């Protein structure tokens, strides 16, 4: 198997949604520092890939992992999902009170509407139920789930609240490197729950060397609650560029001979 390169994209989702740009709100890191990757921890990552051993080991594989700054750890204890006691606990005040903004939102993402944090569900009635959103799950999820008060670009006049969901998702990977056949990205399924079991991965073509740009299209999610209390879900898909620097060295024998060597046994 070829080298597995992980490319982690950490995103400040609220800031990126408000700025309508990932610029300055995304930080990229990979595990290719050994090969000479540059820009680690910044928004301009150039991942170095050495394909010298691709003929023996197979082509390298890239794996993109988008993470929100506010995302709970990927390895959340299983008790989180399994035990009724925990769910009951979560419906009481202490946890949301400690983490009024992030925590309830995250619970809702994980468990859907099975956990109601503070308030009972309220079904829209009358004029609300007749909106275009009828039948699209517009139950009021309760006030505690909302980030309140801040001035927001995406909020409309009289909106009560806007929240930003902490899990980003890669929508597409394209750009020069894909168009020129340098990488072959695709979305794959896995049992991993926190990205709905989907992740992006690509195989690197070991026959092409050079520096190539690629574009990640990353979708960020947020919700608005308007003046009538109706919740609508929104998303914005933003592009961000990164680079691959693919190089190749000459294969030669470790026994310091360019032909099949006699092993230097003492």
């Amino acid at each position: 198997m070829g080298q597995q390169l992980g490319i982690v994209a950490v995103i400040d989702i609220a800031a990126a949604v408000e700025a309508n740009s990932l610029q300055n709100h995304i930080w990229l890191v990979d595990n290719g520092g050994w090969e000479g990757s540059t820009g680690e921890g910044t928004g301009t990552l150039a991942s170095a890939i050495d394909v010298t051993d691709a003929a023996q080991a197979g082509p390298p594989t890239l794996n993109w992992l988008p993470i929100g700054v506010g995302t709970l750890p990927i390895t959340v204890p299983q008790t989180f999902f399994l035990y009724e006691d925990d769910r009951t606990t979560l419906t009481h005040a202490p946890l949301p009170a400690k983490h009024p903004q992030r925590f309830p939102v995250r619970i809702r993402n994980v468990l859907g509407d099975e956990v109601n944090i503070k308030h009972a569900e309220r079904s829209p009635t009358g004029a609300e139920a007749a909106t275009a959103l009828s039948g699209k799950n517009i139950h009021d999820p309760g006030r505690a789930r909302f980030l309140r008060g801040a001035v927001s670009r995406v909020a409309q006049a009289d909106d009560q609240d806007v929240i930003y969901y902490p899990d980003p998702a890669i929508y597409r990977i394209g750009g020069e490197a894909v168009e020129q056949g340098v990488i072959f990205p695709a979305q794959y399924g896995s049992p991993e729950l926190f990205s709905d079991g989907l992740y992006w991965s690509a195989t690197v073509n070991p026959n092409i060397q050079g520096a190539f740009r690629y574009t990640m299209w990353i979708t960020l999610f947020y919700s608005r609650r308007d003046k009538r209390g109706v919740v609508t879900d929104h998303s914005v898909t933003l592009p961000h560029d990164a680079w691959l620097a693919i190089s190749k060295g000459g294969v030669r024998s470790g026994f310091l001979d360019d032909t099949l060597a006699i092993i230097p046994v003492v």
Partner: protein
Amino acid sequence: MPPVNILITVDSITALSTGALTENIYLTDDNPYSQDKGTGHLKTNCVRGQTITWKALAVDVQSPAVIADIAFVDDIGVTIESGVDPAPERYVKPRWLTWSGIIPYRLNPGIYHYRLAIQVASGKRSTMFTTSPALIVAA
């Protein structure tokens, strides 16, 4: 005469943590007469003129391990040891190397231990060695 392939499986993370390859490295080969397969002290059975190929594989695919060096040690009173290589900077970038060679035709039959150096990522403590594996050259 078919070549002998030696596969070195490395638990990179534990090796880095403990600073030694002992118990963190598993060698095997495709010669049915070799001894201690699946351990760190594989004794590969081979004959003079036979081609031997070494290849390393990391258990954790995200922490690739490569062979930095294979050097035969004087087998008179060899001590089996493992630890962090004292001077890893003397090796060239090991990813570019293949490790394959022929057993010398005039070699005396016997057991020949070799010093195997494995590198995981880079840095002062990235390269670890062991002297436990060996070749047994048959008469």
